[in-house]
């Protein structure tokens, strides 16, 4: 078979079946025609964010302060 087009460069990845089912439900009625096209879109978004400084990291220190607040409200011992 002659390869007239450029070689398609794709890699197959695996995701858990329950996740795949969730995604199929989510993309019904949207412009995404396949699991692959949606996954590609999401991963591109994620990759473009990596490297940006995140101001929303929830540090251990933050966590201790939250716990202190929850104690004052009676939600933690």
């Amino acid at each position: 078979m002659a390869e007239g087009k450029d070689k398609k460069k794709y890699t197959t990845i695996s995701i858990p079946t329950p996740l795949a089912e969730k995604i199929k439900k989510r993309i019904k009625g949207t412009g995404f025609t396949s699991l692959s096209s949606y996954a590609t879109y999401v991963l591109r978004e994620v990759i473009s964010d990596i490297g940006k400084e995140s101001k929303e990291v929830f540090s251990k220190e933050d966590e201790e302060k939250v716990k202190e607040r929850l104690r004052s409200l009676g939600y933690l011992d």
Partner: protein
Amino acid sequence: MRLDENVNYIVSGLERSGTSMLMQMLYASGLETSFDNSRPSDESNPKGYYELAGGKIINKLMDGTFPLDEYKGKFVKITAYGLKYLPSGNYKIIYSERNIEEILDSMEKMADLKDDNREETKELFIKLNSMIKNLIQNRDDVEFLLVNYNDILSNPSINVKKIYDFLDIDDIDLEKMIDAVDKKLYRQRKI
């Protein structure tokens, strides 16, 4: 009204974000909800907290002693931080959000103290909210519905329909769920 007995149903959100109101709504509609009187109703929650263990479920989740299996097929209230400690399972979570300034006002009133570091507290709870939402969104064993307390009070019918669609069971008394929304208890209003 029977919920799926293979699923743990949870009402969650930051403290003072409308979680008790959601539990009241679900209870009023006839759905199975679990709560006790270990923390009685008070000025902060005149109709009750609709929670278990005096609100100290988080401690039990942290040390692995909360018997989640016993609560399958029922709604329990677990505030946001507690979701970090959910073991593997099968969950449907209704997660409530509310205007953050209203939450902080309500927390100060409940704790009966003025927060001198309010801006810091605000940032902390915004981060916590964001972290927990990311966490549950990325779990394969969780389905969740995000609702907004302020919007429930403005548009109860629309939000009750969202909850009905999310739960996907028949025979919920939607009128009673709507009626349980008590605008008189909407205090610390900012919007």
